[in-house]
């Protein structure tokens, strides 16, 4: 597999976005989440911790992908 260095910055940015989303899920109750977020429930005080964990996992995947794309170009990468 060839390296796609042009994807490094988008992957890092996407990872940061997902970190931010995770923080929102951890901090804000379901009632205060933006309406377009999965799990938004008007008036609910429940925290969607699992959604936050899912966002963190995706963020980690983005960072790992970027890390491999930044490696030497001679052999395969993730």
């Amino acid at each position: 597999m060839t390296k796609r260095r042009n994807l490094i910055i988008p992957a890092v940015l996407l990872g940061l976005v997902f970190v931010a989303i995770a923080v929102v899920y951890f901090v804000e109750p379901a009632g205060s989440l933006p309406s377009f977020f999965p799990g938004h429930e008007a008036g609910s005080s429940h925290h969607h911790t699992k959604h936050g964990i899912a966002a963190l996992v995706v963020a980690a995947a983005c960072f790992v992908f970027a890390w491999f794309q930044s490696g030497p170009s001679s052999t395969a990468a993730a």
Partner: protein
Amino acid sequence: MHPISYLQAIVLGLIQGVAEPFPISSLGHGVIAPQLFGWNIHQNDDYFLAFLVATHCATALVLFCFFFKDWMRIFRGMGRSLRDRQIDPADSDAKLGWLLVVGTIPAGVIGLLLEHPLRSLFASAASAAAFLILNGVLLLVFERFRKRPPRPGDYLGDSDSRIAKLSWRQAFGVGVAQAAALVPGISRSGITMGGGLLFGLSNEDAARYSFLLATPIIAAAGLLKLPELMGSAGDGVRAQALVGAIAAALTTYLAVRFLLKFFETNRLTPFGIYCIAMGVFCTIVFAF
């Protein structure tokens, strides 16, 4: 009066331990068994979920210990690849490790987002029986459309290097398909073994891939819910959960040993037939 008796805990633990590695849906059997035996235990009861946490943790622990040496090799391989910022094509441990990550992430994310609604929607024993029939049909379909027929000596040589030939896309596809196992009656190991067959693995390699893939997802699901067992939902069932976990650990170990040997020369077909027969039987029993 305890919500789960010790006898029930042992039976449910034994069933969980067998049904998790076998491609017959542990969740489906966990829903069907209490109904068949006439026990007043329901899939969505808090104490039952807390009980299941313990049996799942035991299953994951046994799977991890069973493949401990393999996991150590895989972790070292992943460490090498992270250090070098590339995956050496000759390093099958590293490739296998990242294939497992790629297969685990979609299943984990979908599971985190949809587990509760799906569990609520398909919690009845009747729907689990229906999906068990579907699971049986899927297993037969996987065998019918497998990429290549089994060959003598398929199980000889280095299994991991053969599994590591899967592509990233194939690993991702298997990971997404795993999420179907959130529905009681659909088997996670059946889906992953079937995916392996469709992508050219032998039955034994597919089973090994399935067991390795199972460990992180079952462990994560168990650990995430551990607070439920330790919290008020676990009151009155912790001792039974421990007994159930020991029973599950025992049968998981025996089941994995059996299956790795069984798949050296056999196929998914018997499990497909069992699921269809069991699903039809339960559907008839629950209808009357």
